[in-house]
């Protein structure tokens, strides 16, 4: 048999998908930081988490996603504050004063207490293009959780609330397990907080 007839296949890259997922993780991360100051449900979830809580949500395999060129050359006060979407990670945690902070997209050098990961980029695309809700993706075993599962589920609830704020109802209904009724979330309050979250998340 002529073995040269059968070449190797090295994996390709879907750059647009990577950029989209990086952008979505950055948007959600900054929105959680903003919403943690304003929404009572998110405040309550984070208050029940330990003081040294730091979680990362990333895409596997880590080796396939090398650090962005900008992430390597920009100074740390830009990369650590998460001013730009620079990687396929979202790191959120409590700082020394107990405030919820988005800590950028580089997990190196940080003490992560809860590590969540999506098994592959296509699964992340399913979640972030709302073809599968977060809870459905969990049920389909697309996530892995390394740490306390109770804390992981608290983060899933936080993500559900954030998606209600960030997305219009027609899309949010696909993303969350159950869209809150008028009695559970006052629509005036919802729209007001939506404007405030967007303003605080994207004005530095």
């Amino acid at each position: 048999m002529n073995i040269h007839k059968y070449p190797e296949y090295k994996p390709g890259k879907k750059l647009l998908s990577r950029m989209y997922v990086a952008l979505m993780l950055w948007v959600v991360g900054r929105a959680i930081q903003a919403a943690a100051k304003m929404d009572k449900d998110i405040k309550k979830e984070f208050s029940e988490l330990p003081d040294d809580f730091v979680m990362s949500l990333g895409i596997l395999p880590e080796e396939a996603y090398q650090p962005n060129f900008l992430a390597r050359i920009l100074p740390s006060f830009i990369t650590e504050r998460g001013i730009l979407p620079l990687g396929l990670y979202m790191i959120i945690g409590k700082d020394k004063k107990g405030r919820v902070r988005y800590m950028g997209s580089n997990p190196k050098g940080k003490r992560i207490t809860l590590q969540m990961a999506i098994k592959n980029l296509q699964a992340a695309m399913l979640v972030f293009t709302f073809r599968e809700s977060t809870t459905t993706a969990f049920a389909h075993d697309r996530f892995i959780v390394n740490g306390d599962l109770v804390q992981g589920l608290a983060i899933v609830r936080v993500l559900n609330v954030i998606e209600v704020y960030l997305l219009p109802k027609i899309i949010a209904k696909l993303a969350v397990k159950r869209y809150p009724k008028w009695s559970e979330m006052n629509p005036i309050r919802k729209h007001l907080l939506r404007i405030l979250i967007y303003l605080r998340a994207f004005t530095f």
Partner: protein
Amino acid sequence: MQIPDYYEFLNQAKILSGNKALEHLSFELRGHDAQKPLVLTSRAASQRGLLKPFIKAFYDSTVVLGAIYDGIRDYAGISLARDLAELFRSRGCDSIIAVGGGAVVNAAKALNILVSEKTDSLFDFFNGAPITKQLKPLVFVPTCETDGLELSGMAKVDNRMITSELLMPTIVAVDPRMTPICSKECAAETGAISLTLAAEAAGYGSPAPMAEAYAECALQILAEFMPKAVRRPGNKKTGVALANAALCASIAHANKPAGIIFLIADELAKATGHSLGTCMGVLFPFGFGYLIKRNTPFSDGLLRSIAGFDAYASTPAAERSNRGAEKAIELHGSLKRALPESLRALRVQRYLLPRVGEAAAAASRKQFSSNDCLTVLEHAWEGTLF
């Protein structure tokens, strides 16, 4: 439910089924410390364009496909296995992915033995020598072709069997992009194999709760989706359903002794060169008809899984056994337009029937006599039901 005094059950495959199942393979292979698989597939799968979505599923991962060999036809031989072993070693591969069933999986299992045992000969294994080394991870990606043995510990190489529990695949990925059925005839053959294996495992013989559970699951899926698959073969949903039914039937068959229809069909396929699915499809109503005539006690699960709980509850207990077998034959009726109705229509020579009957009886290890097998074959040849 009858619990036997003693039974054994083994299924070691992790099954991933559904949307984007292929994309999970890189993660699963990593769990087995494998990053460079050798991919085996058939010429037919390659020509149908199934390799493009397969290769794309590994984008954005660290998996490097060592090679994609797409020259497997309808037969797995020792010389093919040796060539594949040379390719495997030269590329430094550490796992095997079989895209497609039947001969592709047989070749993959034979290759796995050669590269794991570090040998060039399978003759000792044909004669029952045990496999002593840890085998490489074997991934099975079903397409529309199957021979019912993929999830078993059996490999058919050069028309001889190698049997070992270690040969079972490690991971199975059923993806809607790979399972659309190419034609009515292919749907009928896959359905016939799954129906035969599941109905024989659930229907009669010594009780085995786990195997019967898988078989009843397969029958429920077939009752709902098999007629649709034959009418509209290209539908993705029915393709995935049929693939899942084939997996369940294969697991059930691997954990129970083979039934009369499988044994006769296997020998008939060897003697005539017809596909196993066609032989099973033709023999099924005659085999079950003969078992009804012989007053074989069928399990209630057969009626319950094919006809549903309402029909099961409304049938008197004494009649459920035969009613279940009749329902199985009715379900087979949905394949009639796509398969020949008798062995004569299949152009099987009559003089072969006694030889096939004797070979099937010998393979059954005295479970069925050559008279039993020959009676089924004669009726199948004439096309006259019992």
